[in-house]
């Protein structure tokens, strides 16, 4: 085992991510990475041998500019960050996707490794993702009317994407058992253009 491998024989993702951000990465296949999904990304964290990358960083905010593969992000507390997309960055926007769909104005959560210049080399980027505790106020074929705190919210039903989980059961495309007045957890993607949410999964209890 060397500095580029973890204890299971896979490639140290942090090391690869850093090299990718610096332009020196050779992509070697998802198996060696433990898969390119965000779940697996930092699953087996190892102490880094490089003090400059000894912990992961997190970025939250709105994208104010995109320069090449770098996202300029304005944090909600006035902070500013630069997020470097690499060829090993996993991107989610309604579904697992690619960096090409990321737009100025989108909201973002990103996890990555801080580079010496302060840029975050992103391991995973979630664009416009929300996970809201809501109450169902109305049900139409193509949208749900929801309340979230003191606000009304439209949830767009996306064909082949939106699913529902009832009382802890496996998700299903059948939304017919949703009821007005039910509490519902809505995982989805915010649409900055009209402030609605594309519903990926709506979860209701009993």
């Amino acid at each position, binding site marked *: 085992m060397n500095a580029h491998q973890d204890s299971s024989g896979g490639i140290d993702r942090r090391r690869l991510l850093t090299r990718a951000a610096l332009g020196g990465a050779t992509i070697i296949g998802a198996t060696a990475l433990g898969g390119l999904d*965000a779940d697996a990304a930092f699953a087996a964290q190892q102490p880094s041998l490089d003090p400059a990358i000894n912990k992961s960083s997190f970025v939250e905010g709105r994208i104010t500019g995109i320069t090449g593969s770098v996202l300029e992000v304005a944090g*909600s507390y006035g902070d500013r960050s630069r997020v470097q997309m690499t060829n090993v960055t996993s991107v989610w926007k309604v579904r697992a996707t690619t960096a090409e769909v990321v737009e100025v104005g989108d909201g973002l*959560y990103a996890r990555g490794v801080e580079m010496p210049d302060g840029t975050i080399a992103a391991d995973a980027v979630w664009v416009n993702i929300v996970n*809201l505790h809501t109450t169902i106020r109305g049900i139409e074929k193509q949208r749900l009317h929801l309340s979230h705190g003191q606000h009304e919210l439209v949830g767009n039903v996306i064909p082949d994407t939106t699913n529902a989980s009832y009382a802890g059961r496996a998700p299903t495309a059948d939304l017919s058992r949703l009821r007005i007045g039910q509490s519902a957890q809505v995982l989805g993607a915010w649409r900055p253009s009209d*402030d609605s949410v594309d519903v*990926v999964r709506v979860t209701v*209890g*009993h």
Partner: protein
Amino acid sequence: MACGSTSLWAGETSWFCCGNAWGPCTGAGGGACGNCQSSANHGAWPNASQACWDITRPDLCGENIPRRGCGSVMNVKHQCSGATVCITITDCGPRTKEWCGETACCNGTCRSNRVLDLTPAAYSALGDLSSGKLPVYIYE
């Protein structure tokens, strides 16, 4: 206060937004403790106070979760990957009673009932935000 290694609870965690934020999270506020931030390693506990307990009622799902108030520190560990994050309790939640019996599984082993909510920063240290829920062990 440092994160400890004494077992406190196990169950399912979800995630939520709080503090200054974008989109529907705008105006989410600082939570029950007033200082919750999505970008910090914070969490919501169902028994952060008596008033909190009255809302979340984990006991209705068989979870007699002990009181841990604002500022309590917990170490949260993904049941399968072993990834951990040290969090500070800054809010009340989740509403456990609404999700009795719900499970989150990995490697064929499941944890039931929502006993914790994490901020995006904390949850993303354990797994993928798009998963929505994870099975975890909680230490203090």
